[in-house]
């Protein structure tokens, strides 16, 4: 049996979801953003909510997310995505509203907006991509940078006496009464991709059930910023990032 005998429409088992646009993503080769975009698109397709979903695009590498998913979008100022999501959700309570933010956006300039939106229990989904640095602007140290991890603004590695400790945002958010679901996932292996998709599905279902804020943190790699190959970056993430940011549900009520 040749490849041509197998490649027929009736044998199709996996194809790109139509919720993703045909635009070629601008992300670096091997970037986790592409996988998470795909998962969000697949969840939207599975739940059949493409017409009812409004995404809030961040500032950071994912600033062009609105080019890649065929849904309605709003572009937020840096860090303000949860505040904008609050407004959109309150004006359109029957729509599905999610923010898509990186760690420089959510855990640095947008800390206040994130914490207060979660504390109010806004009925939104927050997708949080944590790669430990500011990827778009050249790999500067972020609040989430690991101790000892090198970045362009801490070339000898992060030192907690000078730079403070890595900020575990999801752990903080899990303490707030407004959040119903806080989980930390990754997308570096097929198994983890499936788990992350389950988590995003649950987050959107929580919004339908009006349970409160759902936060899905995805521990991601930034191979360009970390100056590694995509495969090396995933290995480094397993060895170092998961110690500081262990995977699993932090809160699920």
């Amino acid at each position, binding site marked *: 049996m040749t490849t041509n005998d197998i490649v027929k429409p009736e044998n*199709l088992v996996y*194809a790109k979801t139509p919720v993703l646009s045909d635009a*070629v993503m601008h992300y670096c*080769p*091997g970037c*986790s953003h*592409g996988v998470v975009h795909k998962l969000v698109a697949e969840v939207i397709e599975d739940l059949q909510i493409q017409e009812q979903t409004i995404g809030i695009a961040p500032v950071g590498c994912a600033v062009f997310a609105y080019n890649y998913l065929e849904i309605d979008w709003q572009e937020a100022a840096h860090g303000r995505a949860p505040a904008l999501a609050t407004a959109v959700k309150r004006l359109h309570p029957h729509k599905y509203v999610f923010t898509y933010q990186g760690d420089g956006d959510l855990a640095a300039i947008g800390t206040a907006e994130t914490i207060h939106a979660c504390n109010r229990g806004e009925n939104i989904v927050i997708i949080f991509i944590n790669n430990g640095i500011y990827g778009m602007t050249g790999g500067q140290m972020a609040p989430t940078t690991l101790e000892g991890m090198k970045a362009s603004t801490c070339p000898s590695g992060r030192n907690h006496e000078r730079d403070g400790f890595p900020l575990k945002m999801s752990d903080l958010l899990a303490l707030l009464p407004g959040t119903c679901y806080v989980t930390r996932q990754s997308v570096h292996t*097929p198994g983890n991709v499936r788990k992350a998709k389950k988590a995003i599905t649950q987050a959107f279902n929580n919004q339908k059930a009006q349970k409160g804020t759902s936060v899905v943190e995805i521990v991601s790699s930034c191979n360009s910023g970390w100056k590694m190959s995509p495969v090396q970056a995933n290995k480094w993430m397993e060895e170092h990032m998961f110690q500081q940011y262990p995977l699993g549900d932090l809160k699920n009520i």
Partner: protein
Amino acid sequence: MAKVRGAIVVDSAVCKGCALCVEACPAQVIQLSVELNAKGMNYAAMALPDACTGCANCAMVCPDSCITVYRVKI
């Protein structure tokens, strides 16, 4: 148990040659090609097509959604 055969089709113009699919494939079916695409990247391609089971692991981890997977029972 029914035997399965699979095949993948890579959109070689979109592939950025990150090699995450090469790593994810449990049967070492995929290798980066020697040829370059218009981006100047060595794109992913099936090197051992007979070993593919159509598990779709490669497509799951592909950040650019450029892999389509087919599977047939034989």
